[in-house]
């Protein structure tokens, strides 16, 4: 993975010093809150329902064992012993003190971490495929391109005060594991007819109040134009994105209102001029970064044999491991979704264990997925059993990847002042109702996503089953949506009828799974059956 050189380190150190000074001025009264707010947001520090909340960046979801140990240390030293992994591959801490944040950021900087631009109206964390570098179907590792964009976007002087937040995702396989089409910019690395690697750009996807799937605006941008092309996209947005209405301020609204064709024309016009300005790093810079993502020293000729004598282990192998591009290796997903647990939360002890396992068994690298799990991307099959035993000891061995138990839930009204309803208790009740692994596996792939408000941090628009919490005259109410997907078969889920109370939504989820079981034909996932039979059988079962 990428490692800072002296320049990168100098920049994060400078940011710590700058923020320390801004905090001092806030606390002594020189800097009022309405000027300080966006500055602390640019360092990921929110004021939330119970306290300050800090969102630490995990660039494209990749971190080392040492960095994961630091996240555990942060949880213990500055918070209440746990953290929450998010749907943008970051981590959030809920009990921060403003006066301690500069020291916390200094601790992070000591291991090449930061909270730069994880909030605010600027370019946010660039997300990517959590199987990068391991999946057989990728045409290249997307993360060097994400790193190039990360550096370009950090402290970019022209784009610090955009109409709204800006989220970029980069993938490099036809399988979309990062919900790329639902980002402000989605990039898919492709090869042109000459076999040269380039970026296919999608612009204007997003969820929230008005979900949209991003259209393709350019089939191929070569590496040496990646930056100037991205600049053109951002400049058109900065100039013409709506600033009159916070809920209409994302780039998806601009693309939708202009139409993709006109928006593309404006970008190309801007790009024609910007590509002459010397904005693009030489290809040598991408090559320099790419070298950090070279394959680790895989052993060759390892056996693919796994001793499946332990039935619980066998189930976990089947459910939570994926094929690796190298024989004898596997990709492991550590579930942060135990039945009845809080999706995406991990204690400091659990973080330390995962860090140790990464160092011992996974070339010291972990990934955070946008579905709030942790991945060890390069694990020898021979080591799987030991790893599973260790995970099991810390409650991290739920064998539910991509099953209904592997649900996404935003923090919701338990933590978030934007929320209308609590999401975690709903997640807990559903996961308890479906706790039996056999039952989950019988249902098969079923992506359940729960948001506590219309901002859709729980990605409910992209759920095979989505749940949206709303406020109905001061009482929590839950709407059921069906048929969404954040994968390459991207689609937006639809609300199917009146909402339910907390117990009602749990029953409703069970009802729709029963409809699926009754109607499915061979090999159909829930999503496939829904797409085939339509919404009516589900509506009838729920509403009579």
């Amino acid at each position, binding site marked *: 993975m990428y490692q800072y050189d002296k*320049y990168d380190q100098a920049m994060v150190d400078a*940011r710590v010093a*700058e923020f320390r000074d801004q905090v001092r001025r806030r606390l002594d009264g020189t800097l009022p809150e309405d000027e300080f707010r966006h500055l602390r947001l640019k360092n990921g520090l929110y004021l939330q329902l119970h306290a300050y909340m800090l969102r630490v960046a995990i660039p494209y979801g990749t971190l080392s064992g040492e960095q994961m140990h630091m996240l555990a240390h942060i949880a213990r030293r500055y918070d209440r012993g746990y953290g929450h992994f998010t749907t943008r591959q970051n981590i959030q801490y809920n009990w921060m003190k403003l006066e301690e944040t500069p020291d916390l950021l200094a601790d992070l900087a000591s291991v090449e971490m930061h909270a730069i631009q994880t909030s605010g109206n600027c370019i946010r964390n660039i997300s990517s495929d959590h199987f990068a570098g391991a999946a057989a179907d990728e045409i290249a590792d997307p993360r060097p391109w994400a790193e190039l964009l990360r550096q370009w976007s950090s402290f970019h002087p022209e784009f*610090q005060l955009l109409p709204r937040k800006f989220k970029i995702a980069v993938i490099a396989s036809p399988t979309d594991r990062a919900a790329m089409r639902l980002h402000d910019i989605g990039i898919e690395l492709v090869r042109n007819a000459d076999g040269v690697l380039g970026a296919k750009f999608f612009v204007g996807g997003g969820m929230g109040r008005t979900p949209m799937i991003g259209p393709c605006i350019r089939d191929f941008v070569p590496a040496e134009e990646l930056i100037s092309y991205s600049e053109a996209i951002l400049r058109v947005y900065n100039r013409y994105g709506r600033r009159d209405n916070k809920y209409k301020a994302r780039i998806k609204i601009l693309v939708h209102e202009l139409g993709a064709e006109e928006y593309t024309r404006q970008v190309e016009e801007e790009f024609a001029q*910007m590509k002459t300005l010397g904005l693009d790093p030489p290809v*040598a810079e991408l090559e320099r970064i790419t070298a950090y993502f070279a394959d680790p020293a895989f052993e060759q000729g390892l056996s693919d044999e796994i001793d499946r004598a332990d039935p619980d282990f066998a189930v976990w192998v089947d459910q939570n491991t994926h094929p690796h591009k190298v024989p004898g290796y596997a990709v492991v997903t550590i579930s942060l979704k135990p039945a009845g647990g809080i999706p995406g939360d991990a204690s400091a002890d659990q973080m330390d264990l995962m860090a140790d396992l990464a160092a011992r068994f996974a070339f010291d690298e972990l990934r955070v997925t946008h579905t709030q799990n942790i991945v060890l991307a390069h694990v020898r099959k021979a080591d799987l059993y030991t790893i599973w035993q260790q995970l099991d000891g810390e409650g991290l061995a739920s064998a539910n990847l991509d099953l209904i138990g592997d649900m996404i839930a935003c923090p919701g009204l338990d933590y978030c002042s934007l929320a209308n309803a609590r999401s975690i208790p709903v997640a807990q009740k559903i996961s308890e109702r479906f706790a039996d692994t056999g039952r989950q596996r019988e249902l098969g792939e079923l992506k359940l996503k729960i948001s506590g408000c219309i901002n859709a941090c729980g990605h409910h628009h992209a759920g095979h089953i989505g749940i949206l919490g709303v406020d109905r005259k001061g009482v929590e109410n839950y709407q059921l949506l069906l048929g969404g997907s954040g994968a390459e078969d991207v689609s937006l889920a639809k609300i199917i009828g009146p909402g339910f109370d907390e117990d009602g939504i749990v029953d409703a989820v069970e009802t729709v799974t029963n409809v699926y079981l009754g109607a499915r034909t061979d090999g159909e996932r829930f999503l496939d059956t829904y797409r085939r039979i339509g919404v009516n059988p589900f509506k009838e079962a729920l509403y009579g």
Partner: protein
Amino acid sequence: MAEAQICYRADAPVNATAASFADFTAGSNAAAVRIEPGDDARVLVPHLGQIQLIEVNFPSFGDGRGYSAAQIVREAGYTGELRATGDVLADQFVFLRRCGFDSFAPDKPLDPQEIEAAEGFFPHVYQTSSDGVAAIWALRHKAVS
């Protein structure tokens, strides 16, 4: 005209009343023009030779359109005074400078110590911009001479 509190130019700040964008584009011969956030700076590009002062107004610091306006005129070769007016604050100073502003007429006077501190934090920059400072990637790949 918004008088400059801070100016980085060798010559004195231009002392001329800036024409509104509407007046300027309607054909006034003014040497100074004022851009509001919704004005299209590109319209000025053919006239940059006659302009000595462009004021870019920030009615609210959170509206970042002026940064793009500044970059556009500098990229087009404008070498005159580029003055940021309005809600101009110390914590955006470095970004404003990087986008090509060399003169500042803030509503609230800027504290010179805060400006000096702000300018001293970051030793490098990650991206090429109107200030011409070499980006980190350029420092990494300096041609060996």
